[in-house]
């Protein structure tokens, strides 16, 4: 091997044992993405998301009874004070998760007293209660959308400034892909979402684009070194492979962190960790297999539009 020169396309191919041409097979990657996204979108239109009280408003009480209780016992007690709502039992039927309308303090105290006398003693220090008024829920949804749009705008601006507008558009499409995968899967499986889901989606937003930018950074660097007649596709393929090890290793470390939170972190961070796990995985996929390929696609169309087949697209 000749010394003292940046790696050539051939050398990059040789280093990676599993090398295959990622850019050429791009329609396959797009197809895989659509295969996951389309059912998600359909489900989103048909069933929407399973919204928790953070969005809809309501009261959620998580309580641990001193001995096993029955679902009927709790439901009947709720009815006796004029309330209804789903009850979930866990931990050998000693732990109950009660959801109902947003309760005023008086009503809430009435319910807790009734539960104590009719169902059984519960651990007062282990009580968890969330009450969200309906107005607060609407505000959360509105803020979530605002945050997404503004974050997207800022990122387009930043990437356009640091790279080119087409890079920004490609990155944002890959990003929307990740958001759609996460939201779509949550809709398909009807997993209930809470406020932390919004945080997860926005973090995915920031994190997945981070992955994409690292690859784009390499494309930017290699693009500047392109000679007349070099193929843009090959250059992109080379760039993706040059950053492959980094893309894989980073995603592994982040997934390790998320798995620990998901498995060991307790109930209240589960939704967040699950959304993040899906999002980070999808983000890594879209960064490697979609973002640069979309860029190639857009550049190719721009070249065709100019109508000069021989011209090398360079900026």
């Amino acid at each position, binding site marked *: *091997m000749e010394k003292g020169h940046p790696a050539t396309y051939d050398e990059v191919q040789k280093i990676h044992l599993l090398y295959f041409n990622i850019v050429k097979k791009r329609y396959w990657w797009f197809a895989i993405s659509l295969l996951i996204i389309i059912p998600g979108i359909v489900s989103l239109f048909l069933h929407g998301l399973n919204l928790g009280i953070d969005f809809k408003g309501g009261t959620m009480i998580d309580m641990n009874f001193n001995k096993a209780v029955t679902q009927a016992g709790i439901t009947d007690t709720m009815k006796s004070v004029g309330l209804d709502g789903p009850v979930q039992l866990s931990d050998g039927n000693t732990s109950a998760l009660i959801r109902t309308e947003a309760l005023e303090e008086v009503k809430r105290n009435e319910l807790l007293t009734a539960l104590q006398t009719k169902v059984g003693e519960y651990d007062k220090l282990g009580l968890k209660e969330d009450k969200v008024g309906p107005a607060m829920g609407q505000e959360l949804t509105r803020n979530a959308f605002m945050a997404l749009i503004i974050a997207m705008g800022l990122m387009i601006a930043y990437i356009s400034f640091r790279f080119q507008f087409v890079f920004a558009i490609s990155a944002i499409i890959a990003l929307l892909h990740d958001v759609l995968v996460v939201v779509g899967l949550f809709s398909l499986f009807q997993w209930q979402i809470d406020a932390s889901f919004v945080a997860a989606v926005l973090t995915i937003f920031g994190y997945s684009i981070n992955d994409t930018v690292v690859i784009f950074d390499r494309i930017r660097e290699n693009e500047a070194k392109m000679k007349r007649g070099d193929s843009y596709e090959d250059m992109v393929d080379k760039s993706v492979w040059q950053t492959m090890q980094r893309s894989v290793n980073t995603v592994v470390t982040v997934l390790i962190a*998320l798995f620990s939170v998901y498995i*060991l972190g307790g109930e209240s961070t589960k939704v967040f960790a699950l959304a993040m796990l899906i999002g980070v995985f999808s983000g890594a996929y879209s960064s490697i297999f979609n973002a640069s390929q979309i860029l190639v696609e857009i550049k190719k169309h721009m070249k065709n539009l100019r109508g000069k087949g021989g011209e090398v697209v360079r900026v």
Partner: protein
Amino acid sequence: MRRGNILKLVALVLLVAAAVGLSIKPLTDAKGIPLGLDLRGGVHLILQAEPNKNGTPITNNEMDKAKAIMAKRVNDLGVSEPIVQVDYDKKRVVVDLAGITDPDKAVDILKTTARLTFKDPEGNIVLQGDELKDARAGQGQDSNQGYVVNLTFSADGTQKFADLTTKYVGQQIGIYLDDKLLKNPKVEIPITNGQAYIDHYATLEAAANDAVLMRSGSLPVSMSIAEKRQVGASLGIDSLHKSIRAGLYGLTFIFLFMLVFYRLPGVVADFSLIVYGLIVLWVFWMFRVVLTLPGIAGFILSIGMAVDFNIIIYERVKEEVRAGKSLRAGVESGFSRAFITVIDAHVTTFIAAMTLYYFGSGSIRGFALTLAVGIIASLFTAITFTRLVLRLVVGISAKMKTTWFGVRREV
């Protein structure tokens, strides 16, 4: 072999080890990083000011007054680091009481308007609670009085109360807290010293609760609870332990991964991670960032992300070495080229964190803040610490094997 570099490295390792050892206590004791209510129990309330019945808009002045009164009541509850904030736009007061033992009582006291009024026999209000100087709970002088709240009027109030008790000698004056009749005493003789009491409380606690309300004054607007998050103390501790365990396992596996994959630089990365963790925790401590459950999740996540900088650099160094550079030159050019990449990549995550902070509320904000602090700290650690250590390591010997850096070079 450069002895100096080895000595410096050993000194650095000892220094970091000492810093870790010395940090544990100040970061975790009573004055350590404040824990949010989801980690030690407590209650978070958003109180919404209800529109006035006569349709006049609620003024900022009224909101300030409401906030001041809430703060007074909160202080009487004896919470260590209470947070009382007002949102003028949305006419809300946000109250965070972490570590409170009886959240139900706190909620009860905070949401009460507590308008203390004295009414004449016809039911007209003749004197209001704002004329009070103080209200204290105590034991009644006679044993059959039970517990009492002793009232002291202001100078103005004393005058008014004297006039009032002169006018209504022989009649009854009703004392109300909101709509609740506390006492309906018959005025025997005019009271001119500005002292009065309300007796027959069953417990000292009940008297004390009312005294707090009377003393803090009445809210200028009535408040409803728009949001309430209550976590029992034992549940909070349980969450804290679970999060710490998740963090330790996550950290251990990331350590192992870096070690197995990157060998010698992996050790440097792990070492930098410890420094990174210390910096983040001390920043939290310094700025009194309240650590919440999502905050810890954000911190663990940021550890996963912080390694990213090392990975980008090491991969770059590998490339430089494969391209024929020496390890030392590889590290230098690897660093300077990776730096641009890292900045561009992290600015985007930072944008997301800032947007989240701006639009988020409560615990989401805690998460956004941890993430943002994490990004800045990881950049800082990488440029200063990681770079220094890596330079020292490759400086030890010019004949250092590139396989220690995970590079298989075919020569």
